[in-house]
């Protein structure tokens, strides 16, 4: 019982740190509020779809960045989708890097795009790692009788 309480505390702390460190924003809370007994893994399912979307988009952007000359419209379109997906799960830092990339597309700055894309990938990898750790711990802790949420 005590071990379980401790796990739940750890989950809560881990969750809070994701917000405090700016990895997640309010949209993640919106997803949590949609989760219920009929769909107890809703948030993790949505985040899994996000990983799938992201893998596809990162591959597409990488391929597009290999082409010369750079097609900024195509790059912007892909990044627009990636930004939208990241926004849907509350991925705050990833979203910010996506916006920067799109700004470079707008100004036709190829070097800026290439440089910023590395940032996008780094932030995405970090977010994914943290979320995977969070959900793994949450699964270990199991459901709790009362949920307390705060951002």
């Amino acid at each position, binding site marked *: 019982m005590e071990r379980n309480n401790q796990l739940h505390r750890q989950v809560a702390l881990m969750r809070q740190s994701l917000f405090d460190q700016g990895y997640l924003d309010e*949209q993640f809370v*919106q*997803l949590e509020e*949609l989760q*219920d007994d*009929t*769909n107890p893994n*809703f948030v993790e*399912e*949505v985040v899994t*779809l*996000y990983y*799938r*979307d992201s893998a596809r988009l990162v591959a597409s952007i990488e391929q597009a960045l290999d082409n010369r000359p750079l097609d900024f419209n195509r790059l912007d*379109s892909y990044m*627009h*989708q990636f930004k*939208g*997906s990241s*926004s*849907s*799960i509350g991925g705050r830092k990833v979203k910010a890097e996506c916006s920067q990339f799109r700004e470079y597309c707008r100004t036709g700055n190829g070097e800026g795009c290439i440089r910023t894309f590395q940032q996008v990938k780094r932030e995405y990898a970090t977010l994914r790692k943290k979320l995977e750790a969070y959900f793994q711990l949450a699964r270990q802790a199991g459901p709790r009788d009362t949920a307390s949420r705060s951002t």
Partner: protein
Amino acid sequence: MASPSMRWIDDGCNVDGGNPGLTREKLFVLVVADDALVRKVHEKLVSKLKVAKQVQTQTAANRKEALDLHLSGSSFDIILMDMQMPIMDGPEATKELRAMGVESMIVGVTSVDATADKEAIVEAGLDECLAKPLTAEKIKYLVETLERNK
């Protein structure tokens, strides 16, 4: 593949006595988006809202599925049409639905910077355009508009 889901909000009792939305018996909503993540989130958002005694949602992944649903006799009170679909053309799908005689409220769901194009919205046959992310308040506003225009 189009998929239905139905959630009974209550057993017919008025859960929230002061909520005008619950005078509505049924609400049928179609979520059209080619991204599975968007479909999942929007469908869940709508199905959890207490805006009618019975809320039924269905999803379509592309223009063809949306049209096929209507051709097979389905009708909806609200169609949430994702306008940011590279494969499926939201405005085109809307025009085709209107050409078929669909009179549902069709709501374009798009990014913030695209909502300002009012002319394009009207030309496409949309009733409203909302910026992502969709929220409970935005959906409730649509239902209130639907009630007012009844």
